[in-house]
C-alpha cells in the first residue's frame, strides 16, 4: 500500500546539468508547486456518444417506441436506480456506482446547442457559449492563470498532439502518448548537444530553444520517474487501455502532473450503432476498470477525479440505418474515491414534449467545469470560464 505524498516546493532537480547556458541564469526556472486538491483525468468520447443507450431509461415506453430495434432490451440493462441503468458493456461503471464512486449527471448541455461536431467540440473544449469563438482551451486558460511557474507536464495530454482544450494563450500542456515514445524522439544526441550550447539572441529563436529545453527536461524527468515502475494490473490491449496504464504509472510514481486528458473516438454512430457502441463502451469500461483497480491498489483513488464527456448526445429516434443522428444534451460521468455526492445527480431526461427529438439540457456543462476547477484544481473558475458558474455539489 503506497500512500501518496503531496509534493512540497522544490526545484526541478534531475536535468539542470543539461540545461542550456542561456537558461541557467534564471530565464526559465520552474518550480514544482505543491499540489493541493486532486488529480483530474478528462476522458473525451469523440463523435457524439449516444447518451440514451449509455444511461438507459429502461422503464420508459417512449424510449422503446422511438427505438424499435436500437433500444437496449430491458433484460440486458445493468439496472441501477429509479428506472435508469447502464449499457451492458459498462460493467465497471456499475461496480463503481454500487461503491458510491460514480456520479451520473444527466442532461448536460448548453443554450442554443450546436449539432456540428466541429463547433460543439470547440464549445466544450474552449468552455465557451454557443455563439462565442474562443481560441484557447478551458484547461489552457487554467494553465495561463494558475501555472506561471509550473513545469510544462503539469497537464499532460495522452496523445501525440494537443487538443485545443489544453492550449492556453501563454502556456500549453504537454503532449505525449507514452513516455517511451517521447524519449525515443528526444533521445537525439545532436539536438541535445545543440540545445546545451545554444545562445540565441533573437527572442523567437530563444523561445524555440526554451521550448526544446523544456521538452527535453520534461521527457527526461518523466522517463526517470517511471522507468523502474510497471503497473502490476493487467490493462486491456486497446489504445485507451494503454493510455490509462500510462496515466496510472505517472500518478503512482508521483509525477506532479495535475491534469490528464485522454480521448476515445468512433462514437459518431449514424449507422450500425448497436455493435459499434457496444464495442467502444466495452473498451472504455475495461480501461476504467483496470485504471480504478490500479489506483485503488495503491491507495490513490481518493486523490483522483475522472470526468467523462462527449460533445453532444444523439436524437431520441433511431434512423433508417440502425443508428442515430446528432443530438444535443448528454450525460457526464464523474468518478472518484471520495465523491461528495454519488449516484444520479439529477433526473433522467424528459422524453415527453420533445419539440424536435432533441433532448433539452438541464445542467450547463460549464457548471461541471467550474466544479472540477474549483474543487479539484483549487482554481478560480470564474476567471477561467469568464462567467459565474456556481458548480455542482458533487466534489
Amino acid at each position: 500500500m503506497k500512500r501518496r505524498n503531496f509534493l512540497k516546493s522544490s526545484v526541478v532537480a534531475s536535468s539542470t546539468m543539461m540545461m542550456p547556458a542561456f537558461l541557467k541564469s534564471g530565464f526559465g526556472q520552474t518550480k514544482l508547486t505543491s499540489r493541493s486538491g486532486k488529480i483530474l483525468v478528462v476522458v473525451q468520447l469523440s463523435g457524439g456518444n449516444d447518451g440514451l443507450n449509455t444511461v438507459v431509461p429502461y422503464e420508459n415506453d417512449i424510449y422503446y417506441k422511438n427505438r424499435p430495434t436500437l433500444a437496449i432490451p430491458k433484460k440486458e440493462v445493468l439496472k441501477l436506480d429509479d428506472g435508469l441503468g447502464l449499457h451492458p458493456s459498462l460493467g465497471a461503471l456499475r461496480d463503481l456506482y454500487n461503491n458510491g464512486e460514480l456520479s451520473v449527471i444527466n442532461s448536460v448541455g448548453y443554450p442554443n446547442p450546436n449539432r456540428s461536431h466541429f463547433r460543439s467540440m470547440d464549445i466544450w473544449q474552449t468552455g465557451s457559449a454557443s455563439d462565442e469563438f474562443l481560441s484557447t482551451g478551458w484547461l489552457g486558460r487554467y494553465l495561463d492563470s494558475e501555472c506561471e511557474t509550473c513545469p510544462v507536464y503539469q497537464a499532460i495530454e495522452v496523445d501525440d498532439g494537443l487538443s485545443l482544450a489544453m492550449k492556453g494563450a501563454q502556456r500549453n500542456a504537454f503532449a505525449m502518448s507514452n513516455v517511451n515514445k517521447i524519449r525515443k524522439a528526444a533521445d537525439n544526441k545532436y539536438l541535445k548537444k545543440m540545445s546545451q550550447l545554444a545562445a540565441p539572441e533573437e527572442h523567437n529563436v530563444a523561445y524555440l530553444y526554451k521550448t526544446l529545453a523544456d521538452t527535453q527536461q520534461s521527457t527526461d524527468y518523466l522517463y526517470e520517474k517511471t522507468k523502474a515502475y510497471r503497473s502490476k494490473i493487467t490493462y486491456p490491449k486497446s489504445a485507451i487501455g494503454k493510455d490509462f496504464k500510462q496515466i496510472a504509472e505517472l500518478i503512482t510514481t508521483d509525477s506532479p502532473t495535475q491534469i490528464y486528458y485522454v480521448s476515445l473516438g468512433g462514437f459518431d454512430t449514424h449507422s450500425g450503432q448497436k455493435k459499434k457502441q457496444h464495442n467502444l463502451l466495452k473498451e472504455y469500461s475495461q480501461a476504467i476498470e483496470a485504471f480504478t483497480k490500479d489506483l485503488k491498489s495503491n491507495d490513490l483513488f481518493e486523490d483522483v477525479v475522472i470526468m467523462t464527456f462527449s460533445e453532444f448526445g444523439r436524437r431520441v429516434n433511431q434512423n433508417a440505418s440502425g443508428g442515430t443522428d446528432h443530438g444535443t444534451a448528454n450525460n457526464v460521468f464523474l468518478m472518484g474515491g471520495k465523491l461528495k455526492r454519488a449516484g444520479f445527480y439529477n433526473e433522467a431526461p424528459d422524453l415527453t414534449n420533445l419539440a424536435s427529438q432533441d433532448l433539452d439540457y438541464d445542467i450547463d456543462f460549464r457548471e461541471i467545469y467550474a466544479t472540477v476547477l474549483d474543487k479539484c484544481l483549487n482554481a478560480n473558475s470564474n476567471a477561467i470560464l469568464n462567467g459565474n458558474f456556481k458548480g455542482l455539489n458533487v466534489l
Partner: protein
Amino acid sequence: MIDQKMQIKHLYLRAGFGLNAREWMQRKDWSIKKAVNELFGQAEKSKPLATIAPVNGGIKSEDRKERFKFRTAEKQLVKKISVDWLLRMADPRESSLMEKMSLFWHGHFACRSRAGYLANNQLNTIRKYGLGSFKELVLAIAKDAAMIRYLDNHRNKKNNPNENFARELMELFTIGIGHYTEQDVKEAARAFTGWNSDKQGVYELKERQHDYGRKTFMNKEGRFNGGDIIDIILEKNETAYFITKKIYSYFVNEQIDEPIVKELADSFYRSDYDIKQLMLYIFESDWFYDPKNIGTKIKSPTEFTVGIFRQLNGVPTQPRALLRVQKALGQTLFNPPNVAGWGAGKYWIDNSTLMLRLSLPTSIFNSSNLAFSVKPELEDMGKKRIRKLSATIDLDPIIEMTEGLNTEEILETLQIFLLQSPLAIPQKRIQSFVLEKEEREKFLLNFCIRLMSLPEYQMC
C-alpha cells in the same frame, strides 16, 4: 544594412517560399527592383486552376448511403486540391508570389470547404483578385458559394435574416471591431439577404428572399445591397488600416511599426485598395530589409514544410502523407479552426509540434517512419498514423554552390543559404556531427539535414 544576397533571400522567402541553391546563385547580385519585377511578372503569367465539377452534379441524393459516398468523394477532392496546392507552392516553375499571396488571403478569408468544386472555385477567386483590387476581392468572396454556405448566408432571408456573414465581414474581413454598431450588422445582413448559389456553386441572387427595402448603414441611407455595403465599408480608411496592418504583420513583422503601417494604409486607401501596389511598396522599401525584420518570423506549418522541398529542390513522393503532417502541425488547408483563422508565430509551437518540426527533415530525407498519430476527424473511427515520408531531390544546385570548397567553407555556405537567423551555436560543433569520409552527395545532404533540424531553420 544587410548585404545584397541576403536581401534577395529575404525577399523570396517572404514573398514566396524560398529559393533553391541554383536560383539563389543566379539572383544574388540582382537589384531588388529586378527581383521584384520577376516575382510580379511571374504572378501575372499564372493561370486559373482547371475547373472541378461537383460530385453527382451537385444534386443531393435521396439515398443515405449514396449521400455518404458523395460526401466522401467531395472530401477526397478537397484533399487532392490541397496536395496540388502544396506541390505548386514548392515548384520553382510556378509563381511563388501568387501562391504566397493566395495562402495569405486564404487564411484571411477563413472558410471551411468540404467539397472539391467549392474549394477550387474559392481558390480561383482568390487567385484572380488576390493581387488586384481588394474591393473586387471582397465582393467576389461575398458571392463565393463556399463562403456563403460556411457563414450561413444561404439561410439569410428577407423574413428571417441571418447575421453571421455580415458580422464576420466587418469584424474579420474588412474594418475590424469598434468601427460599426450592432445596428449596422443588422442592416448589413438585410442587404445580403438572398445572396446564394446554385447547385453548381455559382452565385445566384434569390430575388424573393432579398430585402429591397431602405437601410441605414454607417450613417448612410439607401436601398443597399451587399455590394453597396462593401463600398461603404471601404470608404472608411479604418478598413485600409485594418487590412494593411494584417498584411504588415504577415509579410514584415508581428511587431507593428505604427508610422510605417499608417503610411502604407494611407497609400493603400488612396490607390483605391490596389493590393499589387501595396505589396510593391512593401517589397521595395528600405525598411523591409532592416535586420530587425530578417529571420524574425516563425514559419507557419505550410511555409515550413513547403520550404524544405523548395530549398532543397525536392518533390515529396507521398504528398498525401504531407497532409497528415500539416494536420499534426496545426494547419490544414481549407479547414481553419474557426472563422478567425489561424494564428501566427508562437501560436504554432508546443512540445509536440516543435519536436515534429525538428525531426521532419531527417524523416523526409532518410525516408524513415515518423511514428506520429494524428487525431481523427470526429466522424472517423481512430487516430491515423503518419507513415513514410520521402522525397526525390536534385542535389545538383547544392553541389554546384559548394564546388571546390573545404568542409568549413561548405558549412558556412550552406548555413548562409539555409538559415535566415544567425546560428546560436558555434559552427564547429555542427561539423563534428557530419562524417567527412562519406561520399560528397551524402555528406552535403547530411549537412543540410543538420542545419534544417535546428530551431534556427524554423525562422524566415
